[in-house]
């Protein structure tokens, strides 16, 4: 149930990149299906999706490798149709970086400037400048093979940034790094982007990368954008079952809608339990639904006043009309039996089964020592707020 994305209004001047109703087909397969979006100047925009969803095709079309079957790509208000990649004010950072192995770091960074016919002295000055900015002063003489993964990353970024592009496109550049370095580079990239103020369009299949770094994230599935929103809204208010399942971890409970008024409803699960939850638009009483509930929204031993629910909208106008939270009793409660404790530091969870059911329910296990008494086999009560779960039509997330 992808949300319908209406054609974008004519690009405002502040939009560095505007994509309108873009379509790309490969024989019978539609890789990019009617995608529209805009990225404002200086923003970090991510496209998040599973492999094969068309995000790389989309990014390559923006860079100029491959032309769309229909639709418009405009960079700073200028239509890019028929403009070769070497003439576009957009630069691409490749998945495997594509540093030129036969050139030194300085020659790599100078490559684009030389193509513009800039004078030698000016090139040297700018190369030194940008290497300093990415934290690699004095590395100009080294060969790419002598650098570590993170350093290569920064050279690749410097090589593009030195050209001062309108848009910097990044094709999963952190994919090849090990976990620790990836975490570090995430923060570095975000800081660097904020510092230089260049518009970044970043594609990834790693939701954490997208959520941490971006101002806005588009979730892409099967060639379409399912939702374009701030990271917080994607997580809190997914617009489709796919987004709910793809962004963050989630438990899925299938059942039938007993009651639906506005966006609130009552779900009877296949095991017979009844829960209050939010309901996506267009679902009526009696519909088969999947209820999504995040492990971290499920509280252990809800003592009556720990649940937090939506209150009035804050009206701060900060982009997300997020309602302010208020405390209240947990609307949904269920008895579960602990099967296993999955210890993972801050991300520790309990694997539980509800009474009389084989369904697996993950419950976040906060490491604040309040729950150290829990052992596998224990019966515990868990509960969550009536706005924490969200229902979509059954099977629509696949």
């Amino acid at each position, binding site marked *: 149930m992808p949300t319908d994305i209406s054609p974008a209004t004519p690009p405002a001047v502040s939009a560095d990149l505007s994509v309108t109703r873009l379509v790309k087909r490969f024989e019978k397969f539609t890789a990019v299906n009617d995608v529209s979006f805009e990225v404002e100047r200086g923003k970090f925009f991510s496209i998040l999706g599973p492999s094969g969803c068309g995000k790389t095709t989309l990014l390559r079309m923006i*860079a*100029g*490798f491959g032309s769309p079957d229909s639709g418009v790509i405009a960079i700073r208000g200028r239509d890019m149709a028929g403009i*070769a*990649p*070497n*003439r576009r004010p957009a*630069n*691409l950072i*490749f*998945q*495997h970086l*594509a540093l*030129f*192995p*036969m050139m030194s770091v300085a020659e790599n960074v100078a*490559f*684009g400037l030389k*193509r*513009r016919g800039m004078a030698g002295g000016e090139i040297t000055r700018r190369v030194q400048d940008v290497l300093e900015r990415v934290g690699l002063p004095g590395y100009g003489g080294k060969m790419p093979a002598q650098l570590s993964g993170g350093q290569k990353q920064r050279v690749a970024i410097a*090589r*593009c940034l030195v*050209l001062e592009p309108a848009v910097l496109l990044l094709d999963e550049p952190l994919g090849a790094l090990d976990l620790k370095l990836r975490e570090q580079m995430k923060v570095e990239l975000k800081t660097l982007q904020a510092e230089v103020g260049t518009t970044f369009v970043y594609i990834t299949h790693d939701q954490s990368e997208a959520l941490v770094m971006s101002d806005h994230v588009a979730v892409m599935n099967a060639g379409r954008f399912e939702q374009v929103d701030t990271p917080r809204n994607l997580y809190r208010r997914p617009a489709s079952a796919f987004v709910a399942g793809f962004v963050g971890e989630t438990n899925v409970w299938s059942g039938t809608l007993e009651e639906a008024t506005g966006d609130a409803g009552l779900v009877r699960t296949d095991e017979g339990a009844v829960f209050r939850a939010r309901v996506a638009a267009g679902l009526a009483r009696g519909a088969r639904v999947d209820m999504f509930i995040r492990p971290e929204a499920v509280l252990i031993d809800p003592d009556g006043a720990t649940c937090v629910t939506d209150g009035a909208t804050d009206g701060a106008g900060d982009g997300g009309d997020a309602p302010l939270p208020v405390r209240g009793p947990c609307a949904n409660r269920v008895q579960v039996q602990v099967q296993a404790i999955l210890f993972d530091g801050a991300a520790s969870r309990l694997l539980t089964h509800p009474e009389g059911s084989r369904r697996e329910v993950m419950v976040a296990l906060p490491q604040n020592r309040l729950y150290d008494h829990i052992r596998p086999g224990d019966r515990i009560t868990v509960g969550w707020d009536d706005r924490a779960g969200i229902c979509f039509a059954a099977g629509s997330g696949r």
Partner: protein
Amino acid sequence: MSAAVMSSAPTRSGPGLRLTLALFLTPVVLWLGLLIVLPHIDLLIMSFRMDPSFGDQGWSLENYHQFFAEPIYWLTFVRTAGYSVLVTLLTFLVSLPVAFYVTKVVARNTSRFLLTMLLLPFWVSELVRVYGWMILLRESGVLNHWLMALGITGAPVEMLYNDATMIMGLVYTSMLFMVVPLVSVLESLDDSLIEAACDLGAGPWTIMRTIVVPHCMPGIVSGGIVVFMLTLGNYLTPNLMGGKNSLWFTEQIYNQFIASFNWNQGAAFGFLLLALSSCIIWLGLRLTGQKLSRVVQ
């Protein structure tokens, strides 16, 4: 009994290994020693002696002196060297686009097919292929027939027996030895490097010059060495397509051995040619900054 079997089996170390090594090396050593090193030593000795038909006159540099004294010899020598370098350059210029097209432009299946089509003519011997060219180009040949039929020329034009035809024939003969190493180095070139260069503002010529050619250097040099040596030592193509005008140095060697029956002079010419090819290859390696050990891989 099982112990006997065990002991006769080659072991990983000790005399067993040495025996296996010796066994495998023997044919190579025999080949090199008997067929290449020994005859060359004999030829080298011969080149420093005079024609024995006038009796043994001891050691002498007369054969080498003869080469410098007679302008036709060293002029042919210089001409052969110059044309061989030219043929190598032309072969490279023709082969690079071909190899690039086969590896980077067409789809994988088409690429295999094209490579087979390139190899196919080389299953036929060089002699037959050169005769094929002669049938096309000679005065009463296919090309002349068409030119006359179309009224472009009134009388048949002799297209054989000139330098241009000979060079074209030599390029054709040695092209494959340049295309194959180029294809193999181009296959190891990551496409994203080409795309990155384009993305950074480079046009097709700049990409060729700054990315493709530097990456292909080992293949270019190894192909160049093979083509240069084959061309320098080629006898058939210059002789058939260039005729009497070809003035290829191999013909001088042939004349000394077969026509003048002066094996000592012929041997001296042979060693001069060997020295020339070694010098030019050394120079080529120095100029391109390549190492022989890397190039022959």
